[in-house]
């Protein structure tokens, strides 16, 4: 997030797109509710009538995957009505001319056709966002889990840049992180493009620096392949994998493909707290400590670096992840893994990462710092882009066009399936599914179908249906509700016995290789 969570109580206009915040980030949502009580106006863009959507002053139930069209038309309205922030554009951005002339052609009427919502509503959304003082954008996977995920994010940046809604209290562009430490995994360099602290791998100086630090002659001065490519290469050029705590088989967008990939490896080592579906394919499974059993550090969605603390002794012989990885490294003869505690590991990270340079184990005790914290005198950075962008750079406008999802509905697959998460379940439910009581609220997966669709397809509430895509077929219970719009069905992928990811996985964003999980054409038929 560019802004701290506390800022969520301060926007004048809230623009929430592709985020089911009351279910996925409930505590953050309570802050938006307070902003609403204080008189903020909220626009929600979501195909479904979520709780957040019901609270909105304006809800745009756009057709799944049509976000770019909507955002182009909003930009059009903002420019047409003179709601752009001229001085911000002049002082802090570049490439505005091309963008501002590009958007002239994208009228609300044009977008209305694609998004399947009234042009007046698009018009209103543009005006509200453009006039808000300030306006804040919030989004989650509903924006990124598309083949055009990067285009979606860039389109949101364009809106914020043209209206100067960056670096302001209560404004900004705020992606909400889904997993507790997904931010931290990136911070620590567990990505193919960056060393710790987002230092690019394709910069030869960085590669040389880390080679030296890690006791090697060299490290490839180029990006590694992504996980998606690595799975495609399994059995071809990739022959061994070390997977830490991820139930890839259940959460991966294309289950059959993924299972096949892992099976074709010569050697698979999985570190986890349970024997997951992924672990069952492994040659070696190593038991890790769970929450409350080990000390550590975690960074939240507002870049706040916080301490995890050990409360009880580990289950059985479970060991901390860092210990397990270090023991494997030592056996491989790799130097530099003589850690005695989580503190040793974290302090090494701080030394190598410019954004953590001002931090160490003791300083983060109270969770007061938001990175970047470049030195020990620095108070941390709750709000990014205040006064200037990183290194005095300009905010770049990008010219973006709308394109259809990887697969679109057809006679064979006439409905849009979109997927999401539920309040009571978390990812593959290896954790919530094992917590007493949660089944009282959510014990079975279901498919939300609009009453009109249910009628025409002959589906009954509580009955079973077959749902097929170009990749496979599953059975699922039907829930008739007008929460999803006509023509779109919804489910989550929380239950292993309803492997929705047999169906999904039609395409990937060419830049980030994030899977298109939000859009998948399907056919739904009743099971006799």
């Amino acid at each position, binding site marked *: 997030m560019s802004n701290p969570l506390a800022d969520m109580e301060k926007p004048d206009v809230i623009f929430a797109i592709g985020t089911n915040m009351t279910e996925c980030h409930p505590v953050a949502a309570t802050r938006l509710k307070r902003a609403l009580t204080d008189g903020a106006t909220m626009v929600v863009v979501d195909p479904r009538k979520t709780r957040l959507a019901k609270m909105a002053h304006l809800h745009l139930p756009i057709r799944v995957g049509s976000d770019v069209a909507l955002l182009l038309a909003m930009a059009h309205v903002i420019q047409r009505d003179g709601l752009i922030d001229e001085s911000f554009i002049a002082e802090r951005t570049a490439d505005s001319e091309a963008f501002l002339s590009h958007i002239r052609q994208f009228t609300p009427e044009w977008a209305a056709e694609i998004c399947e919502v009234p042009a007046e509503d698009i018009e209103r959304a543009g005006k509200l966002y453009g006039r808000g003082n300030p306006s804040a954008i919030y989004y989650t996977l509903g924006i990124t889990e598309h083949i055009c995920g990067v285009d979606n994010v860039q389109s949101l940046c364009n809106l914020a840049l043209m209206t100067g809604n960056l670096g302001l209290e209560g404004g900004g562009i705020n992606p909400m992180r889904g997993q507790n430490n*997904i931010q931290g995994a990136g911070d*620590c360099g567990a990505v193919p493009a960056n060393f710790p602290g987002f230092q690019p791998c394709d910069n030869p100086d960085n590669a040389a620096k880390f080679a030296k630090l890690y006791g090697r002659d060299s490290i490839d001065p180029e990006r590694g392949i992504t*996980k998606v490519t690595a799975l495609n290469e399994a059995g071809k050029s990739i022959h061994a994998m070390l997977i830490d705590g991820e139930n890839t088989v259940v959460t991966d967008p294309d289950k059959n493909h993924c299972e096949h990939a892992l099976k074709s490896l010569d050697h698979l080592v999985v570190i986890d707290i349970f024997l997951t579906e992924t672990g069952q394919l492994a040659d070696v499974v190593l038991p890790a400590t769970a*929450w409350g059993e080990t000390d550590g550090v975690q960074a939240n969605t507002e870049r706040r670096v916080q301490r995890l603390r050990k409360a009880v002794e580990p289950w059985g012989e479970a060991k901390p992840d*860092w210990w397990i990885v270090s023991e494997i490294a030592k056996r491989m003869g790799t130097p530099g893994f003589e850690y005695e505690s989580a503190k040793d590991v974290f302090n090494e990270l701080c030394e190598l990462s410019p954004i953590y340079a001002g931090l160490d184990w003791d300083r983060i005790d109270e*969770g007061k710092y938001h990175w970047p914290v470049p030195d020990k005198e620095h108070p941390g950075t709750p709000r990014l882009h205040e006064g200037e962008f990183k290194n005095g750079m300009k905010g770049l406008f990008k010219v973006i066009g709308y394109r259809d999802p990887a697969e679109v509905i057809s006679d064979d697959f006439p409905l849009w399936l979109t997927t999401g998460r539920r309040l009571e379940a978390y990812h593959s439910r290896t954790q919530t599914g094992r917590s007493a009581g949660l089944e*009282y609220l959510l014990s079975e997966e279901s498919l939300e179908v609009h009453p009109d669709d249910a009628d025409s397809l002959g589906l009954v509430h509580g009955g079973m249906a077959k749902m097929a895509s170009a990749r496979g077929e599953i059975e699922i219970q039907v829930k008739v509700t007008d929460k999803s719009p006509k023509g779109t069905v919804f489910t989550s992928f929380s239950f292993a016995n309803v492997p929705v990811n047999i169906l999904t996985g039609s395409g990937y964003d060419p830049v980030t290789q994030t899977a298109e999980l939000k859009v998948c054409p399907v056919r739904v038929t009743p099971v006799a």
Partner: protein
Amino acid sequence: MTEHRSDLVEQKLSTLTLDGKLVEFTKGETIYEIANRHRKEVPTLCYDERLEAFGACRLCVVEVEGIRKPVASCTTAATDGMVIKTSTETIEKHRKTLLELVASENRNVDVNALSGYSSQEMTILVDRYSARTGRFSGKQSGTSNTGDKNPFILRDYDNCISCYRCVRVCAEREGDYAINVMNRGFHTQIITEFNNDLRDSNCTFCGQCVQTCPTGALGDKKALRDADTEGEIKKTRTICPYCGVGCSVDMLSKGDKIVGIQPAMDGPANEGALCIKGQYAFDFIQNDDRLAKPLVRRDDGELHECEWDEALDRAAEGFKKVKDQYGRHAVYGIASGRAPHEAAYTMQKYIRATYGTNYIDNCSRS
């Protein structure tokens, strides 16, 4: 540049006399806030600093010169030159009487501390004022709804003192408006919209009502499963393991058993709030499905338990073999978006330092 809603207003300091001492305050502060800052132990029951002051219990009354009746300090804004006494004989007698009334109306004065974060407030005050008497015994306010089958929230309104903190936290902090008040006086009852079970209301089971209840009328059913478990309750400050908000919690344990979770009121990301996952989905940790020992696949094709050394040797041998046979670009690492920094850091270092590649990723792409 842009103006902003929360532009700082210039604040001027004013003064008043608090128990004979001149103290400063800022406009808008209540008498209670000032007294609290000066460590005057003014008792409260309907007060929760996160909520709008309500003025229902009248325990926080103080004497203000020139005002005949004692005033509720939690709802009274301080004004320049006020002369305040927080503790006089009359006031203490009044407080004791009120607490005796509360104690006699409630079936239980002793509340298990696992009930919730604020569950000891009434008990502590009743003892501080030696107010355990049976003077009003027999009369009880509210109606129990212990029939609600939900597995999280105990609703025993025989212990309700009508402070409405639950109703207020649900409305003001959560914005859920799941519960409300029916009737007033002795028959006051806290109900859901149609007087149903919570599951059939707007309730999201965030547990906030439980955590603010000062009497244990609302209790944490999951934690109370361990009411009779041996051992002191230990609290460990940590961060929720679910979403990216990063709420601070106190993990409650007895010996090596995790028994419950309470929100950290001073948690920087959540300021006391939690959701159902952070509040109630903790017992996956100590679950019989947990892996207790390493597993290796043996010649029979099955996974078998083994000692750490064997498992680690097997793990390393396999990587060596692949590296020797196919080269250093044949090994890939996937770090977790759930494990702590130290896991992700060592994972990437393992790959980069062992193979000299950047063949490392995490699960954010799926």
